[in-house]
């Protein structure tokens, strides 16, 4: 893949700056609202952004009806997990959110969080949590997906780890009240690791378009990429390095963990066999498509691989931008052929 194709591609994956700004503004507004809310103020709420918005790895959704996620964590002080139940925690945060003068009525409870969709463009999830007193470096406890158990997590430490991986000093915008930390990397210039994560996430979205139930989570992709990144100075070499170094997991269990939190839980065990195989297949296909893109001499083939990896619309618009110094295929003597009628067309089928 040439640097030029890559730059053109990456450009198409971005969400518009206006949309970012809007998401940022609404998220900050909600965070300040919660931080100052009488109902939970006594619990000294700490608010911060987590996930791809914080890491600066958001990609444009593949369908216009899909939203991009902004995740906010709301940590309420509690002496221990026995002094507050998971239900109470969710209700307290929920009540405070629903008191928001403009958006409150739109909040809906979702597993482990409260969620709101804004302008059909983005979805803000507010995840309630409490401090994890066993953690040395600011870990928290949130509900698991079934809302049965407490789950340990540490978004701030993960962010710090990722940020160190991308070899860049954290810029803390400390002009706001301490309780609200709206630091995120979306508004900064993207570094090669972040762009490589965006590329892999987009390839994941296309690969699992027809089977969203098997789709690996963003944090799995992000962690693999960060672990395989070696500080390469540009996106092309970062991506090459990541796809060459990332594990194939073809034998044995998958362990993608950071600080004891294994993000690959949904990929292990007999019950997740299909997900695991689909994930291994995805890594293989991604590697193959990237290598093909980097080696092709022909514009038509580049378009094919971009389409298979990133989507047909992006392929058309990237190729529309230029020929990137690639040759055009000369097709000698093409025969005009008519397709048989519909019921005499075989649907492609692989026997195993």
């Amino acid at each position, binding site marked *: 893949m040439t640097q030029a194709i890559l730059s053109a591609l990456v450009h198409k994956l971005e969400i518009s700056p206006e949309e970012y700004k809007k998401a940022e503004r609404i998220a900050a507004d909600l965070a300040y609202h919660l931080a100052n809310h009488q109902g939970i103020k006594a619990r000294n709420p700490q608010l911060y952004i987590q996930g791809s918005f914080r890491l600066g790895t958001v990609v444009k959704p593949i369908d216009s009806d899909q939203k991009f996620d902004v995740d906010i964590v709301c940590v309420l002080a509690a002496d221990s997990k026995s002094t507050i139940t998971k239900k109470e925690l969710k209700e307290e945060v929920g009540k405070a959110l629903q008191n928001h003068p403009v958006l409150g009525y739109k909040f809906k409870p979702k597993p482990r969080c409260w969620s709101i969709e804004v302008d059909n463009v983005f979805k803000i999830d507010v995840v309630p949590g409490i401090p994890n007193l066993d953690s040395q470096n600011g870990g928290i406890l949130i509900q698991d997906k079934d809302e049965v158990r407490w789950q340990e997590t540490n978004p701030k430490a993960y962010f710090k780890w990722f940020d160190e991986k991308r070899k860049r000093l954290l810029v803390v915008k400390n002009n706001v009240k301490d309780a609200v930390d709206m630091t995120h990397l979306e508004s900064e210039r993207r570094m090669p690791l972040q762009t490589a994560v965006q590329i892999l996430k987009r390839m994941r979205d296309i690969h699992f378009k027809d089977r969203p139930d098997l789709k690996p989570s963003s944090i799995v992709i992000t962690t693999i990429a960060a672990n395989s990144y070696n500080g390469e100075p540009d996106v092309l070499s970062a991506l090459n390095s990541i796809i060459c170094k990332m594990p194939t997991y073809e034998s044995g269990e998958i362990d993608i963990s950071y600080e004891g939190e294994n993000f690959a839980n949904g990929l292990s065990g007999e019950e997740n066999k299909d997900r695991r195989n689909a994930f291994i297949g995805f890594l293989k296909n991604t590697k193959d498509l990237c290598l093909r893109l980097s080696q092709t001499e022909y514009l038509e083939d580049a378009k094919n691989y971009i389409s298979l990896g990133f989507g047909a619309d992006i392929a058309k618009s990237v190729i529309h931008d230029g020929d990137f110094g690639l040759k055009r295929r000369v097709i000698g*003597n093409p025969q005009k052929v008519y397709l048989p009628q519909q019921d005499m067309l075989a*649907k492609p089928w692989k*026997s195993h």
Partner: protein
Amino acid sequence: MEISLIEKEFAELNLVFTDLKILEDGKTIHGPLAFQIEGFTDSFEIEIKIPNDYPFHLPSVYETSNRIPRFDKYHVNTDGTLCLGSRRKISEIFSKERSLMGFVKNAVLPFFFSFCYLVENGVRPYGELSHGSAGLLEDYKEFLGLRNKKEVLDFLNYTLLLYQKPKKRLKIKTRERCRCGSKLRFSKCHKKYDLLTAYYSEQELKKDIDSMEKL
């Protein structure tokens, strides 16, 4: 010297696809397949391997230019063999025009068209089957207009009787109710699928039944 069936059929194919060549073994055709189908103009290097017992068994087709990624998702095996469709469907298609030309035109080119369409539009033009036995079942369900595995297997096991010698075949009375559960007489309902026995061998059908039974 007598001209073999393959030589004759290749000559017919070669009149249209002039760049294709046949190897000395008389069983391997290779070269670029350049086509223009519904606005898609493209060319793929292919190799067609014709089995000894052609036309009772159908040729395998390889995409030798390695332009389509060798990956399940795109229905290409790692050795480059194209997964054109279910054995039954390809046999049915071949039965309509039993020649290499018919095979290339009706089974091979639509595969490349389907790929070009996928690349341009992000979806397959007329769908695809799931991998393995699940895909076979989808194909039979659609072909027979039946709803589930049980109905399909019941019907196919019943069809197996049709391969028997004429004496035994008499067991199937066209006046009796069709096994598909429609309450119609066999003659008014699934009699037309008798045709399956004309283009699909008993062994092939048994193999499909076995594989679907394991589902």
